[in-house]
């Protein structure tokens, strides 16, 4: 914002940020050396982890000295908290805090820019701050249709009259902010609150979402940014990290999120859409607590990648037996592929299963297969032969069987 706001406002607005981001590795005693202003100014501290409503959740610490802020952060760093948002409650660990210069102010304005299918909306209120939901009737909105530009809109006209002399400045600021919003491919941008000081704008808190699909177009504009994990997501395990690495290596897609290592249902499913349906069906049939993970592979991964991905799952799956000695289920599922070569991807899966055959037997794993698409007959035949050769219980089905049938076959067997 420091670089772009002057550009989009013709130099009228600038933004000078005195901000320090504090993570779990930050040495708090070093901060005043690198940022001497923290000792001089009054400060604001808050978590910076992709959630809003920080004031409501008592996670906003305002107008304090560095000593106070340091203690406040130390007390909260790496602590688990449950926050309440409009979408419900989320529990997670606090790891990142922002410390900013406190700007004394008497007015708190609210502005939010949102996107919708056929228009963008500018929301504005003179009653900004933590309780914006409670004064939602003070919020005025301006819709900007997709093929229109902000210049065609009457920005000043939609702002409330109580802004008085500040109306023109606010309108100019919002116009510049909107241009920045569009050009930088934001999908959401909220300044709540912001204030005016001597005719210039001071954002006091901000929430923003960027469209990561635009990272190619915006590489220079955004600079080096890292998309953080959403709040409440556990830190990825070594295995999840490894799969993410495999995913980045190619055009194919490989995903793994662990849910419950004790779960007995493990899905090795091809396709983003199908993988969700397999997980759904496990849940819908009432076996949510048995679902061990969510994952998918798609985009015609090479035999080697499929092998590595399968191995990762088998390793986790065969780590320990079910304490009650019940069988575990490996569901090798998928719809009818458009162009992924089923025989080829199955070759990688079979290599991994061969390597883990003894472990799979020891942990009492039953394998169910359902798949269609290019060369599926050959792929399914290979799976059957593998079962016979290794003496593993493998059941194999093709497109004539409903896609998720193997879920109920496995779960209702017990």
């Amino acid at each position, binding site marked *: 914002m420091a670089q772009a706001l002057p550009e989009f406002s013709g130099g009228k607005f600038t933004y000078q940020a005195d901000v320090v981001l504090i993570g779990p590795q930050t040495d708090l005693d070093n901060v005043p050396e690198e940022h001497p202003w923290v000792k001089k100014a009054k400060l604001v501290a808050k978590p910076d982890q992709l959630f809003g409503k920080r004031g409501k959740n008592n996670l906003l610490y305002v107008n304090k000295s560095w000593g106070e802020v340091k203690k406040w952060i130390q007390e909260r760093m790496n602590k688990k908290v449950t926050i309440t948002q*409009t979408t419900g409650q989320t529990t997670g660990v606090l790891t990142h805090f922002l410390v900013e210069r406190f700007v004394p102010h008497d007015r708190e304005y609210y502005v939010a820019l949102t996107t919708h299918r056929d228009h963008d909306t500018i929301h504005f209120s003179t009653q900004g701050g933590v309780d914006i939901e409670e004064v939602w009737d003070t919020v005025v909105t301006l819709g900007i249709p997709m093929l229109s530009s902000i210049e065609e809109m009457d920005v000043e006209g939609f702002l409330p009259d109580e802004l008085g002399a500040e109306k023109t400045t606010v309108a100019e600021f919002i116009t510049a902010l909107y241009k920045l919003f569009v050009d930088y*491919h934001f999908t959401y941008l909220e300044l709540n609150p912001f204030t005016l000081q001597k005719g210039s704008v001071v954002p006091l808190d901000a929430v923003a979402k960027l469209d990561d699909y635009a990272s190619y177009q915006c590489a220079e504009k955004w600079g080096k940014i890292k998309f953080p994990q959403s709040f409440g997501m556990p830190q990825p395990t070594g295995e999840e990290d490894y799969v993410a690495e495999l995913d980045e290596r190619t055009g194919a897609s490989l*995903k793994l999120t662990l849910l419950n290592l004790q779960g007995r249902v493990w899905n090795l499913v091809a396709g983003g*859409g199908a993988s969700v349906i397999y997980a*759904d069906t496990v849940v819908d049939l009432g076996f949510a607590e048995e679902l061990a993970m969510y994952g998918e592979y798609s985009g015609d991964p090479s035999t080697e990648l499929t092998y590595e991905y399968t191995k990762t799952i088998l390793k986790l799956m065969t780590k320990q037996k079910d304490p009650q000695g019940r069988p575990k289920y490996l569901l090798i599922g998928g719809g009818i592929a458009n162009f992924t070569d089923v025989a080829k991807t199955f070759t990688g899966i079979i290599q991994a299963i061969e390597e883990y055959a003894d472990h799979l037997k020891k942990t009492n794993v039953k394998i169910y297969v359902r798949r269609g*698409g290019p060369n599926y007959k050959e792929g399914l035949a290979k799976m059957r032969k593998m079962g016979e050769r290794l003496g593993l219980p493998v059941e194999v089905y093709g497109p004539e069987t409903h896609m998720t049938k193997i879920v109920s076959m496995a779960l209702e067997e017990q």
Partner: protein
Amino acid sequence: MEEYELFDRNTKAFIHGTQERAAQRMLDFDYLCQRDEPSVAGFITPTGGGYYKLFWGTKEIRLPRYTSIDQAVKAHPEADVMVNFASERSSAESTMEALETDTIRTVIMIAEGVPERDTRRIAALAQKKKKWVIGPATVGGIKPGSFKIGNAAGTMENIKDTRLYRPGSVGFVSVSGGLSNEGYNICHRNSDGIYEGYAVGGDVYPATTLLDHLLRYEQNPRIKMMVCLGEVGGTDELEIAEAIRSGRITKPLVAWVTGTCAKMLPGQVQFGHAGAKADAAETSAEAKNRALREAGAIVPQSFDDFGEKIRETYEQLKAEGAIEPLEEPSVPHIPMDYRQAVAEGLVRRPTNFISTICDETGEIHNYCGVPIDEVIEKGYGIGGVIGLLWFKKDLPPYVREFIEMVLQIVADHGPAVSGAHNTIVTARAGKGLIESIISGIVTIGPRFGGAVNGAAKHFTWGLENNLLPREFVDAMKAKNERIQGIGHRIHSVENPDERVQIMINFARKHFPRTPLLDYALAVQDVTTMKKNTLILNVDGCIGVLCVDMLKNLGYSDQEIKEMIDMGFFNALFILGRTIGFMGHYFDQKRLKTGLYRHPWDDILYDVPDRPEKVE
């Protein structure tokens, strides 16, 4: 064609991108449906024009390639569809351009990763112009009997198995492209099949929504029931529920929203699709399934009985007489692609080419079986590589070293020799590297550089016929042939050529045997008796030592003769001397020398006054 139809049996499309295989799949589908003409009018490939060859049944046809949308549209005003395979970086731009044309009415964006704002702009423009955009992030869709988008519906085998060559009564639409094929399969197994089916793509804001297509199906009297497969996130399914309530959708709709497992997952797990993320409670899968059910859609308990619900709905419509039984058409046979047939081991054919020195078809190219990385790691060097590619042998270190020594010795011999001279003259005439060195190389032969081969040939002949050195010299004289490789302008017995000495010493030290060198030196003893400059020169020494090298490598005399005949020894000279030619070329270019013109005073002009007249 009615407003609510996107394609018919005469639809013509452009393929944007170099997607021959996708286009072939479209043509095979067309052929299977017994269309009169292929559905692909041509390709838009900004990287180049010309044409692609594709099959129409068993016959090969040519389809034009255009380098711009503008060109394509002018050549084929009848084409009203563009299947856009452009990457996510350029998909939006080319789609916008297509929408601005007068004739293209429907664009399908295959790319995944098009920025939201770009797609939203496209959707707004399409709406304004009353056009249709399907995607992005989709495989497309299919209208049985009429038109297939790119790779949709997978293999021909699958299309046959699920009878996608003829229309049924079900209008199908899904979010996921990967699942669309499964959707067609479910419809096929539980009804008379789909009338048409599309995947709108998994982005947050697809250019056309599930509802857009359902409203189209609603208007189409040939569609009797609709099937919709939605996804967690977004409000599209809620709008469908609203459309049912308000009576804009009246046909039976079997619907399911996937992502019911989302509530089990910590934080917000991002599923495979960008749009599959519930930001608010009412966009969760359960909430949307509930809303659809309450509005009157037919919603199963889980995906497991999705097919059952479709069957029930279809059977009821049939019982009511709303759906008439359909006559199954016969389908023509599509020849299998040669490549596929080879993969399945069904055909074979003799090859036209053979290579026994290297193979680039594997993961790492190899030289005579040695992967290139190993060549580098184990330090084969130029000598070792020549061994692999010329001799097909893993040469011992002394042979590699000898070859490299030869290359170094012959690399250049000054600017005056014919090859270097020609190179210089050509470079100065403003020609490029290739022309300049070629004009040098073409002078290499019997008189320039050819002495290596010649010497090998002469001395081998002498030794082979057991001629004593003096007998050999006499025999050559009797034949009136100069012995190749003997004689030097400056060097003599008293003033030996250091280069020759180095090679002889090396050979004596490392070669197990040097029979031809020994013979040549014996011949030298005879010739130097006549004149002390008639010594074994560099070319001669290289020639005889190459023969000795081959003998040491186990080649038979016959094989060595064949190698001499194919110019094997000249090869070493050509390879080495090319280094020098290139040096002369670069030298001239750096010096920016001008066109060379031979001076008059260096030419004897002796032209007769008049030519001899021949009657």
